[in-house]
């Protein structure tokens, strides 16, 4: 877009936003009318708060633009060989556990959440990135994992580590049920159905009364939580659990991706008709992708419940679904390392920003939305996606 057009558009948007930003409603309660006053302070405060984010964004954009000038990172080619070694996974887990001994309570908490998001993002990548099916209601399966654990532990002995496969299975089953009738729909409808299901689930959770705890949620009883053992605090154990599950989960997904199943998904994404003609059962594979994604979300849900010991319908919101989707998009569709990077960036950076600039707490979502639009307009293939994706995502020039 030409510079002059951009400036004119920006000006127009500023004009449109002026009444909301610089105007203030002064209601007159006795009469029941309202007057419009001027409130410059509010508008100025808005821009002042936005400044750090804009600065950071420009920095990031600049880095991306000129990344070719930066020193190259070591090629990951040898990574493929390393991955095959049988000691690779345990070594990685052990390596990740180390910081658990040094990080304070807050750092551990952030790291644990980050690990959960990594699992969520890589899980969602199976369906959205690899198979090319857009999903808007992913948080539903996260919530199912968490809630199944929370509800069951009220009746039976179910420590968090036993709940992991239960959560996976429950979410995968639900994913399968949702996928069965929906996958023959075209892309955008499918996405909306997943959203509708997530919203309906949230309403059911809120109105579920005794079973689901309604708006107040359910508290996980102490013996079922992730508790401290052997001199380690509960938070350290939580981090170790999250790290281990995340590494194992990502490794499993990576292996599936590099098998005939992953190839089939990519084939379906690239050209569904040709894939079918080559003997790939497209519908069955898509359902499988969806169920697996749901299962991994459930896994993350159980970890979340065991860690935060409290589960309520806010686990099932659209914001969460969009956040994880954004992580996958930002990292690059179909790219597992991309999703890992995307998850870490989109979780840690806003968290750190909130710590460093506490007044920006409320601006988190706004900035997130702006990033989403900006990425779609400039680099839809994400950080680690390929340029061919960019061409495909942007469509032909009109």
């Amino acid at each position, binding site marked *: 877009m030409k510079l002059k057009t951009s400036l004119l*558009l920006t000006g*127009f*948007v500023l004009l*449109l*936003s002026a*009444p*909301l*930003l610089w*105007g203030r*409603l*002064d*209601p007159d309660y006795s*009469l*029941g*009318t*309202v*007057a*419009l*006053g001027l409130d410059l302070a509010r*508008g100025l405060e*808005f821009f002042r708060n936005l400044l750090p984010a804009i600065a950071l964004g420009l920095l990031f954009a600049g880095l991306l633009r000129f990344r070719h000038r930066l020193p190259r990172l070591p090629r990951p080619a040898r990574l493929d060989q390393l991955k095959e070694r049988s000691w690779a996974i345990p070594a990685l887990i052990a390596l990740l556990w180390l910081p658990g001994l040094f990080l304070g309570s807050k750092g551990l908490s952030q790291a644990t959440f980050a690990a959960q998001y990594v699992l969520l993002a890589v899980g969602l990548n199976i369906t*959205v990135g690899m198979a090319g099916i*857009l999903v*808007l209601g992913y948080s539903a399966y996260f919530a199912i994992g968490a809630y199944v654990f929370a509800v069951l532990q009220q009746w039976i002995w179910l420590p968090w580590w036993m709940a992991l496969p239960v959560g996976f299975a429950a979410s995968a089953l639900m994913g399968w049920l949702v996928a069965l*009738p*929906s996958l023959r*729909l075209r*892309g*955008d*409808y499918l*996405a*909306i*159905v997943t959203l*509708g*299901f997530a*919203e*309906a689930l949230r*309403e*059911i959770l809120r109105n579920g009364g005794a079973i689901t705890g309604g708006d107040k949620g359910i508290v996980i009883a102490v013996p079922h939580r992730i508790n401290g053992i052997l001199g380690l605090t509960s938070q350290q154990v939580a981090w170790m659990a999250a790290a281990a599950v995340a590494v194992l989960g990502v490794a499993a997904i990576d292996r599936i991706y590099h098998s005939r199943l992953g190839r089939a998904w990519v084939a379906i994404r690239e050209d569904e008709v040709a894939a079918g003609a080559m003997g790939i059962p497209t519908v069955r594979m898509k359902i499988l992708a969806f169920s697996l994604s749901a299962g991994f979300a459930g896994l993350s849900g159980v970890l979340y419940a065991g860690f935060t010991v409290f589960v309520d319908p806010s686990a099932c919101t659209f*914001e969460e679904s*969009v956040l994880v989707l*954004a992580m996958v*998009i930002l990292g690059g569709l179909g790219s597992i390392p991309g999703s890992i990077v995307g998850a870490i960036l989109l979780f840690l950076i806003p968290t750190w920003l909130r710590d460093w600039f506490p007044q920006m707490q*409320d*601006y988190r*979502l*706004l900035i997130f*939305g*702006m990033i*989403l*639009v900006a990425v*779609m*307009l400039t680099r*839809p293939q994400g950080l680690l996606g390929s340029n061919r994706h960019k061409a*495909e*995502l*942007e*469509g*032909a020039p*009109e």
Partner: protein
Amino acid sequence: MLQVLINGLARGSVYALVALGYTMVYGILGMINFAHGEVFMLGMFGAVFGIGLCTTLFGSHLVLNLVLGLVLAVAFASGWGWANERIAYRKLRGANLLAPLSSAIGLSIVLQNFVMLAVTKGKVDFPHYYSDTLTKTFWTIGSARVTLLQIVMFASTGILCLGLWWLIQKTRMGTALRATAQDRTAAALMGIPVDKTISRTFVLGSALAAVAGMMVGMYQGVLAFDSGYAVGLKAFTAAVLGGIGNIPGAVLGGFVIGLAEDLTSSTLGSDWKQTTGFVILILVLVLRPRGILGERVSDKV
């Protein structure tokens, strides 16, 4: 029972107006304008701010301020609707599904949060001085009540729909719209200004949403930055229910959803009212994605 019918139809007329915006954009661009619910919300705020401005400038003139407020609300929402398309969607036309939808979602988040930060996190009251006449004047039919506002809602929806029909069938701009919706390339080759036509579609839809917004503002008495989300989703459901891209379908769908919601509310209790919309959405998309009256979409090249 009659009350349920009346309330449902009133609610339905609002959904119908907003649904028109979704259906027109889907018909012409093949994309779901996720941010349309936010334009509706901006219409609500535009109305209140507009009335506020008029009160400050002219004093408390009931009719004058109300009318001017409506005009300002429509202008405001239309401006935003136009800007949305121009900034977030134009570049991504014809692209793979993910990009425009994600952009729309991002835009929706931006608009919601912007209003939250710029105005207030809490609820805003609609100045009841202006809406009292409409909400408090009523007629009784049997055990049911119809307020003047509800009559205004039906009437405006009816008039606006007729106006839209006339515009689309009888004017040059309407023909351009229909042509672009059916085959964008051919339309361009025939000399139809495609970009302008698409922009006008957005403006039209936003204007209708603004009217709906003002009426809802008066009906509910309160508005908030997130007033657009639920209405948006349900209006979208209505558009799909009637057949996406199909204008009479959107209107029909709106009324069906409105009635269904009030029916659920009276039988199962208001807690489950929200769920109705989502359940209908899922059922329609899974069982009859073409909608009741059949869809009309362009061939995406």
